[in-house]
C-alpha cells in the first residue's frame, strides 16, 4: 500500500530511531512511504499559542503539498502532534468556510491551494493495525518477544479528539496492546496509558512536567514493565531523556527504557537492533532486551566535529550564522 509520509521535525533528528525503525518495518509489511516534498514544520503547539491564522496556514502548506503528489490522498504521520495538527486543520477548514477562505488566500501568496477533505491524515499505528492488520504482522514475526513485559503508552493526541474520526477508544485504547501481543510480548496493566507526558511543560514548569513523568514511570514500574513502548517522539523524549532528572528531583531510581513500537516490531521481525536505532535511548535498553536474547549495540560513539574544551556542547544559534 502506498502513502505519503510526513515525518515532522522530530523524526529528522531527535526521534531518528523512530524514523529508521518505521522504515525498517514498513518495507516487509508492504507499506510504501513517499516523503512529502519540502514539507515544513507543523507548528507544534507553540505557533498556535501566538498567532492562529499563520499557524493554520503553515499546516495547510503541508496539506497542499501532499495533495499535489502521487498517493497524497493519504498521509502517514508518525508523530502524534503532527498527526493532530494536520487532521485538525483539514477538519476546521471543512467546518468553517471562512477559515478555509482565509487560509487559501494566504496559501495563494505562495501559489498553493488546498480543498478540505482532499487529504486523510493517518497515524502510523492506525495504518499498521487497520490497513495491514494483526494477521499480516503476525506472519512476519520470526523472533517473538516472549518474556518481555511491555507497558503500552498511547499519550494524548493519537485518539483525542479525533478530528478525522477515531480508530480506537479515546479513554482506553487497546490497539497497541493487541499489536504488542501479536509480537509475542506480555502486555502489563498500564492504567495511565493515555495520560499526558507533560508535552512542552518541561520547558515551562519543570515541577509540573516532572510530576506527570514520575506518575507514568511509577505506573509502569508498579506493574513490572521491562519497557515502555511509545508512538510519539515527545512522549519518548520526556520519559526517556528526562528520566534521570526526574529521579534526581524525586529521589527515585527508575530505569525503564522507552522504545518506539516500531522498534519492538522490528526486533520481532528479526531486524538488527542497530538498524532499528536501538542504542539512541538515554535509559539503556540492553538489560531489558537481553531477556529476549537481543544483543543491542553499545551506546553510540561521539560523531564528527571536535569542539573546543571550553565550548558548551550546544547547537549554534541561528543568529550567529
Amino acid at each position, binding site marked *: 500500500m502506498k502513502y505519503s509520509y510526513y515525518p515532522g*521535525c522530530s523524526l*529528522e*533528528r*531527535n526521534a*531518528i530511531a523512530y524514523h529508521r525503525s518505521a522504515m525498517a518495518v514498513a518495507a516487509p509489511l508492504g507499506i510504501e512511504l513517499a516523503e512529502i516534498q*519540502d514539507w*515544513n*514544520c507543523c*507548528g*507544534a*503547539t*507553540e*505557533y*498556535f*499559542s*501566538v*498567532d*492562529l*491564522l*499563520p499557524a*493554520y*496556514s*503553515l499546516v495547510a*502548506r503541508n496539506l497542499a503539498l501532499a495533495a499535489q503528489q502521487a498517493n497524497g490522498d493519504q498521509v502517514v504521520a508518525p508523530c502524534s502532534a503532527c498527526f493532530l495538527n494536520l487532521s485538525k486543520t483539514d477538519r*476546521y477548514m471543512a*467546518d468553517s468556510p*471562512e*477559515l478555509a477562505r*482565509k487560509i487559501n*488566500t*494566504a496559501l495563494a501568496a*505562495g*501559489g*498553493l491551494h488546498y480543498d478540505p477533505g482532499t487529504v486523510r491524515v493517518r497515524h502510523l499505528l492506525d495504518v499498521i493495525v487497520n490497513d495491514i492488520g494483526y494477521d499480516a504482522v503476525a506472519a512476519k514475526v520470526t523472533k517473538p518477544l516472549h518474556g518481555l513485559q511491555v507497558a503500552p503508552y498511547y499519550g494524548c*493526541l493519537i485518539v*483525542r*479528539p479525533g478530528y478525522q474520526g477515531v480508530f480506537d477508544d479515546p479513554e482506553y485504547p487497546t490497539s497497541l496492546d493487541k499489536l504488542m501481543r501479536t509480537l509475542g510480548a506480555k502486555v502489563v496493566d498500564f492504567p495511565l496509558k493515555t495520560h*499526558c507526558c*507533560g*508535552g*512542552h*511543560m518541561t*520547558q*515551562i514548569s519543570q515541577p*509540573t512536567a516532572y510530576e506527570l513523568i514520575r506518575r507514568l514511570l511509577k505506573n509502569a514500574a508498579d506493574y513490572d514493565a521491562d519497557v515502555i513502548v511509545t508512538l510519539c517522539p515527545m512522549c519518548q523524549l520526556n520519559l526517556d*531523556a528526562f528520566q534521570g532528572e526526574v529521579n534526581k528531583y524525586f529521589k527515585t531510581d527508575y530505569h525503564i527504557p522507552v522504545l518506539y513500537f516500531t522498534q519492538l516490531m522490528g526486533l520481532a521481525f528479526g531486524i538488527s537492533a542497530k538498524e532499528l536505532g536501538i542504542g*539512541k535511548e*538515554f535509559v539503556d535498553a540492553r538489560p531489558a532486551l537481553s531477556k529476549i536474547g537481543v544483543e543491542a549495540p553499545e551506546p*553510540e*560513539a*561521539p*560523531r564528527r*566535529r571536535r569542539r573546543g574544551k571550553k565550548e*558548551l*556542547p*550546544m*547547537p549554534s*544559534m*541561528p543568529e550567529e*550564522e
Partner: protein
Amino acid sequence: MAGSATPARVATFLEEVIAATPGDPHLELCLQCGTCGGSCPSGPDMDHTPRQLFAMIAAGLKDEVLRSNTPWYCVSCYYCVARCPQEVHITDVMYTLKQMAIREGLYRESSAAEVPEFSETFIDLVENYGRSFELGLATRYTLRHHPLNVVKMAPMGLELLRKGRMDLTPKRIKGLDQLQAILAKARELGGAA
C-alpha cells in the same frame, strides 16, 4: 444579552472570545459541570480551572481572565475536549485567550509570563528555516531566559549530540520564500475565525 437597545452595542467578552475562535467553539453552552478541570493534568498549577475561567468569561471579567496563568499552563492534551458533554472546544479557547493576552500585554502579569517568549523563539526558527530545531530551541530559550539552567541541562544536550539526536544547525527548506509569503499574507489577514 444585556438587553441594550443602543445600535452601537459593544460585543460582550464572551462574544469576543467566540468570534476570535475558529469554527464554532460552543463556549456559550458550557454547563459549568467541571469535567474539564477534573481531567486536566495541569489543574493543580492553574490559577483557575478551565470551568472557572469560562464562568469568568461569561461574567465579562476580561482583565482577570487575560491575567490568569491558566491558558499558558494548558499543554493541549485534549483530555477536556474529549470529555466535555457540551463539546466546548476548550483547547481552542485556550489558544484564543493566549493570543488576546499577548495582544493586550496582560500575560506579563501572570505567573507564566515567560511562556510566550518560548513560543516566539520557536516561531522565529520556523519562519527562518521552515523546520523546527527543537533542541536548539530549548537551548536558545534557556540561554536567553534561564542562563543558569544551561549548566544543568548541558549533560542532556551533550548526550543527545553524542547519540546523534540533536542537530547543530537547523535544516532549511527549499521553499522558504514561498512559506514566508504565505505566513506574511496570513498575518496581514489577521484573526483566524
